[in-house]
């Protein structure tokens, strides 16, 4: 039977950027890696490289911890290279490990979570990784040639400023790709109110990173020109650390922990075997936490405007940021209490990470009390260790959680539980003594005569570092064992995940107006049935 019908408008014939990127990355071997535009491959490159930098900063942290066992003298390092090692430990932990590993995880997971074919601007995402790799390598080289903050080699200091600028540009570029993916490539029907919590946290984190790292880039340009022409109007190499310190202290340091809450928010309903209770509350808590963690406005606090730390806005924001974390904990506990919780390593990782964030923000609030004089003491290190520890716990936990999507089989659960427990105890032991040392006025950045008890606290902190290192070793062994093992059985969803990345084909899903976001996977399964 023939009929007359109006032909629907045809789909555009031009290939999407994703299609082209995938086509061009068909080459294998090194050419395939160098030319890849696939978000999974780019994400794995980010994660692999940042884990290498984690080992580097971890080893440095171990040396610094051993040096602090006898804090009155320098036993392993001297005064200059102690300061340089401390600087590389901080810069490496934030710019070469914490932010990049979260970007790597997000690059793999977020497109699938929102039902996109790929990350937005896949070539820009790839360019961001290679810029980070080269820049990060040059940052390390700059320290090796006696450059960087506290360095004696002027060209090495120039190299540090230029290469850190490269890393910052790379992180901003990658953040732009991720934020655009969540905002612009969500599947039909997935409004922002329904977006999975990890994707939402990545959107808010990327926005804060873009803004704050944009300011940091401007500052690095100025410092580079100042140092390159040997004017030193903004200080010598010894002062560069002060210009960068706002990136590693509250409130900015909390900005690196925003995805921690997102990961925990996605994991808790899965292991509570229930639907998330008050999804909107969690969205609001993560958004408020992100907003309050924007710390670029404190960039003059260690230099031109030291009175900033006494101002009401600074103190009030330091206390206010505790509130969204408590709200998130209420969501976390409420979801667990209304379900039938089961034990699993991702839940343990998520719980440990959220508790570390809570400890970090509470310590940050204590630090802001001017009469305690905790700024520039080891309390700063305590907060950094809590927060960056939470990032490390999340990163390792997220790899455990999403690993079946990479290799279609989970990592060994028992080793995962041991890793999570070791990390929880290790980070706590690493960070808490530094708060107490700070209350005893132990300064950060140099060694010298200390009050009684600080030596013992430093020893506890050192043991905490060893526990963290042990956990990382167990994790790497677990990862290597999984890579070396071959299995015929595909286990792609061992947790019964609720978000879209666990669907057989996330891109094919259209979320109906009446379908809650966490039923997205079921909606896709229903559509396929």
């Amino acid at each position, binding site marked *: 039977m*023939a009929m007359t019908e*109006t032909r629907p408008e045809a*789909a555009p014939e031009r290939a999407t950027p994703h299609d082209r990127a995938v086509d061009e990355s068909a080459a294998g071997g090194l050419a395939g890696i160098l030319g890849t535009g696939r978000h999974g491959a780019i994400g794995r490159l980010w994660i692999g490289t940042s884990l290498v930098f984690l080992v580097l900063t971890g080893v440095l942290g171990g040396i610094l911890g051993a040096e602090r066992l006898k804090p009155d003298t320098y036993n392993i390092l001297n005064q200059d290279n102690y300061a340089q090692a401390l600087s590389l430990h901080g810069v490496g932990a934030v710019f070469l490990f914490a932010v990049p590993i979260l970007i790597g995880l997000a690059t793999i997971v977020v497109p699938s979570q929102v039902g996109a074919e790929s990350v*937005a601007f896949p070539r820009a995402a790839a360019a961001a990784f290679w810029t980070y790799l080269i820049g990060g390598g040059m940052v390390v080289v700059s320290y090796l040639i006696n450059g960087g903050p506290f360095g004696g080699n002027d060209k090495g200091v120039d190299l540090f400023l230029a290469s850190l600028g490269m890393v910052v540009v790379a992180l901003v570029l990658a953040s*732009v790709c991720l934020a655009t993916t969540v905002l612009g490539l969500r599947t039909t029907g997935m409004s922002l109110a329904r977006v999975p919590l990890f994707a939402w946290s990545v959107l808010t984190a990327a926005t804060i990173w873009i803004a704050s790292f944009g300011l940091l880039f401007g500052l690095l340009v100025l410092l580079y020109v100042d140092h390159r022409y040997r004017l030193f109007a903004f200080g010598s190499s010894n002062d560069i650390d002060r210009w960068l310190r706002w990136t590693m202290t509250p409130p900015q340091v909390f900005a690196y922990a925003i995805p921690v809450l997102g990961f925990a928010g996605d994991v808790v309903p899965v292991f509570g075997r229930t639907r998330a209770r008050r999804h909107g509350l969690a969205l609001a808590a993560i958004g408020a936490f992100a907003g309050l963690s924007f710390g670029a406005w404190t960039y003059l606090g260690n230099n031109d405007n030291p009175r900033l730390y006494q101002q009401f806005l600074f103190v009030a924001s330091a206390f206010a940021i505790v509130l969204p974390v408590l709200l998130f904990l209420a969501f976390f506990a409420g979801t667990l209490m209304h379900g039938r919780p089961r034990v699993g390593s991702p839940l343990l990782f998520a719980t440990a990470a959220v508790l570390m964030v809570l400890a970090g923000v509470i310590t940050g609030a204590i630090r802001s009390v001017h009469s305690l004089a905790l700024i520039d003491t080891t309390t700063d290190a305590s907060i950094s260790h809590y927060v960056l520890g939470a990032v490390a716990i999340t990163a390792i936990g997220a790899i455990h959680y999403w690993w079946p999507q990479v290799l279609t089989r989970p990592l060994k659960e028992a080793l995962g539980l041991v890793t999570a427990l070791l990390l929880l105890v290790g980070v706590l032991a690493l960070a808490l003594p530094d708060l107490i040392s700070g209350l005893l006025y132990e300064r950060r950045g140099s060694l010298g005569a200390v009050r009684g008890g600080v030596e013992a606290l430093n020893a506890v902190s050192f043991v905490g570092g060893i526990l963290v290192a042990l956990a990382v070793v167990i994790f790497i062994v677990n990862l290597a064992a999984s890579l070396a093992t071959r299995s015929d059985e595909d286990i792609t969803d061992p947790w019964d995940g609720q978000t879209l990345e666990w669907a057989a084909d996330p891109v094919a899903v259209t979320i109906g107006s009446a379908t809650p976001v966490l039923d997205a996977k079921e909606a896709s399964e229903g559509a396929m049935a």
Partner: protein
Amino acid sequence: MTLVIADDSIGLPPPPPPARPRVLLIGTGFALAGIVLAFAGLIGLYLGRRAAALEANRPWLPKGVTIDLTPGNVAMVGLAISAVVVQWAVYSISNDDRPRTYLALGLTVLLGGAYINGMAFNYTQMGITVHDPVGLLIFAITGMHLAMAGAGMIFLGLMAFRALGGQYSGRDREGIVAAAMYWDVTVLVFAAIWFTIFVTK
């Protein structure tokens, strides 16, 4: 409307994909947020240092340095005109008026080039060097803005070539709008620089 005859054996073409928000526009917006913050930090530093110098009764500008308002005004007016012209390009592509789109984009790039040329001349007249703190700040801020303007001109040129290749039209003008947005923010950033460095000095 195209009418076709179809029967059971003839499959209809696939439906169009769901409408996507403007990805390039969103990405450009995010990138601009970072760029604006970079300038905000530097201008804040400039203002802070100047306020500290004036509070201590120290002269802010070094001896022999003059920052005339006229060249700054010329640059500002030129860029302000370019901000209007680039919107003409958006209006033209919206109406599928390609010749005027190319003309408007070309004029915007030309005005951008004139701005860069004017600033280069201005540097020779101001008498500042990078070897004093004020000169360092001025060179860092205006130099970064020249780089931003240069990137904007490349962006506009690239979108013009894409329009020339038929990629953009009244129905899909995303690239032109994104480039225009970038350029307008470039002009706004210069307005802040003009007020800070050239007007209030």
